[in-house]
């Protein structure tokens, strides 16, 4: 493990990733966030960006978590948490949620992954015989979104997650556009991975050693904004 990794707490790692992902949205984008780390991205999106968060359980305009004493159990987000709807929000059923998601009406999706590769493949929904939560809405979402942004720790307990070719069951084939970790940012294009940003506390060699897939280095490689 690179020495620098020890300089970052788990919280710091998540913050770096979420902050960086939050910079990916254009004004007025409709965005869907996966459960877990992706949810934290919302905390760093400036209000003036007016990003609209879509929740697959039937809510366009999901706001912050309910802070009061008596939340309304009839308003939740896709993670099951009680949320406060934002001004201008609306409710709908699962049919409309997936018309929105599969129909190409989501500008960007941010979700986690177990594995990704340079072919844009993503595996995020099962480890056979071990972890089988089901795909939920993730398969539709990844297939239907205009942009798919994977956010995850660069490695998991030392295990490589950006691999030459995913060997876990896929969520979708060839759909990932961007990979953001605490160490770097990769574009995924027709030719594979392109390293475009690097966290300055890591060396290129450290990135290479902790990445299972070949990648090109952008001629415009720059430091990740932390």
């Amino acid at each position, binding site marked *: 493990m690179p020495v620098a990794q020890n300089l970052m707490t788990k919280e710091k790692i998540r913050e770096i990733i979420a902050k960086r992902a939050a910079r990916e949205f254009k004004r007025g984008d409709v965005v869907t966030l996966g459960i877990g780390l992706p949810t934290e991205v919302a905390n760093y999106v400036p209000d003036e960006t007016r990003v609209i968060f879509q929740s697959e359980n039937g809510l366009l305009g999901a706001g912050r978590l309910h802070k009061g004493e008596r939340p309304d159990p009839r308003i939740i987000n896709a993670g099951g948490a009680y949320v406060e709807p934002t001004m201008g929000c609306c409710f709908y059923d699962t049919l409309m949620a997936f018309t929105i998601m*599969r129909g190409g009406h989501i500008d960007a999706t941010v979700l986690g992954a177990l594995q990704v590769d340079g072919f844009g493949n993503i595996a995020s929904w099962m480890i056979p015989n071990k972890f089988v939560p089901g795909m939920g809405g993730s398969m539709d979402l990844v297939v239907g979104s205009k942009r798919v942004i994977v956010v995850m720790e660069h490695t998991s307990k030392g295990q490589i997650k950006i691999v030459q070719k995913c060997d876990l069951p896929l969520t979708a084939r060839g759909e990932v556009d961007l990979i953001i970790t605490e160490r770097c940012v990769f574009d995924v294009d027709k030719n594979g991975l392109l390293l475009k940003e690097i966290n300055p506390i890591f060396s290129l060699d450290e990135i290479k050693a902790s990445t299972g897939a070949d990648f090109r280095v952008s001629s415009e490689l720059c430091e990740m904004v932390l």
Partner: protein
Amino acid sequence: MKKVVSVHDAIELIKDGASIMIGGFLSCGTPDKLIDELVKQGKKNLTMICNDTSYPNTDKGKIIANKLVKKLIAAHIGTNPDTGAQMHNGEIEVELIPMGTLVEKIRAKGAGLGGVLTQTGVGTILEENKETIEIEGKKFIFEKPLGADFALIYGTKVDSFGNVAFYGTTRNFNTVMATAADTVIVQADEIVECLDPNDVVIPGLFVDYIVKREEV
């Protein structure tokens, strides 16, 4: 006028071995009182069709905990470890279907369509043993319509004509399930004489029985 019945009488209609759709996303918009009665009456060998199995021993999770289910068709079971455990030791058969495909399969049944053509799952293990069709150079998976003997659904306000209106994110699967089952039982937070016709989300003709959820 639709029949407003007791929860006992409504659930008594369900026979062992029946297929039942249950609305709700986790605990939200889930007909918890109908589920409690289902457990109380101890129905067996059910085929259960739902988005998820909620949390351990909570609403839909009670049906799992009490082992009433032979086969489960769902999109996500990760919030209830009981379901995974029963699946792994072979107590229940589980078919996992992407949420968007599941909702379309149910709609296809309700709308009299021949099936669903979706790109979701193409290039994954979901494609195995499925018919695929190439349309303008893109591959689509063909999925059959999915109906059930019963649908147990939730409604925030239900009128005496069976019309259903919702509050918040409680709609989820309730709307499509109402169209795709032979008998539809709705658990109502409130029963009113007549809803504003512009507020109705599920037209009354789909609803067979109404059960009022008494406040605990």
